[in-house]
């Protein structure tokens, strides 16, 4: 049992991490309207509790695999915020040298493997990362994030089958926000409890309230411990919600404002904020200080991205093959 003060300190860190992602993405939305960021921009706003909670359980040498809605995962994983922002701008100093943009955030040294924009396309890859660790006898975990929409793809089923069959050190994290673009789960799945699908493959699966970062963290630790003890893969379904549209082009005709408002009440940030306030660990002044620090950090990141150089067109075909290999 952690001492109370230590526990509250940790909770403040989680709050800060979530708020950092929230403010980063709100700024991205503004920059999108200002046409500094282009392409598809999928915001994670409302779902921060999942990425932040999950990352607490991962060690630096574990691998993370994510989808196109990955800014939260990237920041929670510790990617440099300046490099991520520069990537959004498509600049050469972006974390993917500007080649990927919002949907393809990578960080080799941090074992952050995307940023994949094919729904369910990264699941087989995560199976392979876990297989490599198992073959090498390494006690590492691969953590793969995907939406509930991915459960309808064949690759989801192929991947679960392989992971369980080969008893791989893989943590499958379904971020169930209820909608695949505008398609509600109820109109796309015959079995709507995604965790039951995993159980169908004999996998240990559980569900958790994704709006409660502490619950996510606890579940994540339990899963990672079991995996590191060699107990095979784990499946975690996190019930969450995105407060914004699917992407910047979404008019959200498929859901009501009331529904969104009801979920916002349960948001991961307000919830933890209220909890910490009630415990006397947070007040208005401290919150403002937090906001100021984050604003400062973000301003610096945006300035960095603004000033960063574009890759020269002469380098267009760079990085298709490893230099000097042919």
């Amino acid at each position, binding site marked *: 049992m952690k001492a109370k003060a230590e526990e509250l300190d940790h909770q403040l860190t989680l709050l800060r991490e979530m708020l950092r992602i929230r403010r980063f993405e709100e700024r991205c939305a503004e920059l999108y309207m200002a046409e500094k960021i282009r392409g598809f921009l999928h915001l994670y706003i409302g779902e921060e509790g999942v990425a932040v909670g999950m990352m607490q359980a991962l060690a630096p040498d574990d*691998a993370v695999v994510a989808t196109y809605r990955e800014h939260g995962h990237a920041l929670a994983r510790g990617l440099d915020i300046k490099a991520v922002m520069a990537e959004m701008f498509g600049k050469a100093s*972006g*974390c*993917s*040298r*500007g*080649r*990927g943009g919002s949907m*393809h955030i*990578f*960080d*080799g040294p941090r074992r952050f*493997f*995307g*940023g*994949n924009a*094919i729904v369910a*396309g*990264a*699941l*087989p*890859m*995560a*199976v*392979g*990362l*876990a*297989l*490599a*660790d198992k*073959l*090498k006898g390494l006690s590492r975990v*691969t953590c793969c994030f995907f939406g509930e929409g991915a459960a309808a793809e*064949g*690759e989801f089923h*192929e*991947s679960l*089958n*392989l992971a369980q*069959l080969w008893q791989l050190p893989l943590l499958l994290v379904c971020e169930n926000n209820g909608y695949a673009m505008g398609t509600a789960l109820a109109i796309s799945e015959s079995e709507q409890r995604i965790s039951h699908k995993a159980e169908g493959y004999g996998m240990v699966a559980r569900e958790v309230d994704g709006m409660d970062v502490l619950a996510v963290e606890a579940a994540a630790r339990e899963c990672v411990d079991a995996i590191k003890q060699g107990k095979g893969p784990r499946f975690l379904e996190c019930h969450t919600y995105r407060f914004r549209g699917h992407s910047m082009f979404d008019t959200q005709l498929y859901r009501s404002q009331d529904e969104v408002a009801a979920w916002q009440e349960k948001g991961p940030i307000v919830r933890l904020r209220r909890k910490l306030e009630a415990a006397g660990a947070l007040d208005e002044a401290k919150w403002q200080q937090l906001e100021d620090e984050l604003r400062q950090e973000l301003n610096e990141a945006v300035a960095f991205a603004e000033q960063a150089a574009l890759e020269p067109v002469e380098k267009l*075909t*760079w*990085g*298709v*093959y*490893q230099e000097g*290999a*042919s």
Partner: protein
Amino acid sequence: MNGDSISYREAVREAIREAIRNDDRVFLMGEDVGHYGGCYAVTKGLLQEFGEARVRDTPLSESGFVGAGIGAALGGMRPIVEVMTVNFSLLASDQIVNNAATLRHMSGNQVGVPLVIRMATGAGKQLAAQHSHSLENWYAHVPGLKVLAPATLADARYLLAQALADPDPVLIFEHVLLYNETGPLPKAEDCPDMHKALVRRPGSQLSLVTYGGSLPKAMQAAEILAGRGLDVEVIDLRCLRPLDTQTIFTSVKKTKRLLVVDEGWRTGSLAGEICAQVAEHCFWSLDAPPQRLCSQEVPIPYPKHLELAATPQVEQIVAAAAAMLEAR
């Protein structure tokens, strides 16, 4: 192996065996590669020799296990993934085209995929359309992939090691008609740099450019043409991406005529691409329009006579080359 001679099938098996033995990171996986011994019997005995960790039978999940190969490569292994035939690789084409080929570039050169995928290709065994296609052209269209077509015993035996040493994804296409070809034990020197096209038969009057299963046919055709006093140079591409255009251009500038033989369909074929490049770069050296001999625009049919008619054969190669030369 039998005395001092070896089959193409055995040559591929030897290459895999050597790779697994020499490097702890190498493992083989695919459908029926282990207990069954490989659908074309290529991997027979390897499971018994190396065990289930290094020779892994997979479920029928092309997308799943090809993707797993990509991940394992990212994770520091050197997987050899066998997809039974190119036809089934289409179930994994998302993984191959959208992940293996793109990760290096999308990640700003931070993560590469040192993966080798082997598959059988081509017609000639009366297996009908869904088992006979030659789609290596499609993969050769994709930047980020390297595409090899070993046509000789030496290439079957020694290209794999080069492919495994490459930091990027390499696809190896083995034509089904080549597996039973036999010949003297090849030497590593006979398999130079995988990116190089090779002149398999020097000649002065026409450049016959081909690869894979069509190479033996082209060689035979060249022999027949020689009997008629026509001197044809045969070039084996070996690597369909990146293309060694220099070797092609040098040859065409010498012979002044180009005939490409490609078992892919004519429309949108690699043969068309080679003709276009030659037209762009060697136009003023040409004495005749570049020609191509490809498969007919039809899914490969089951009956022998139709299958033969659908794909380029020796007589047609002879006729096409002779027509170009005799029109002088």
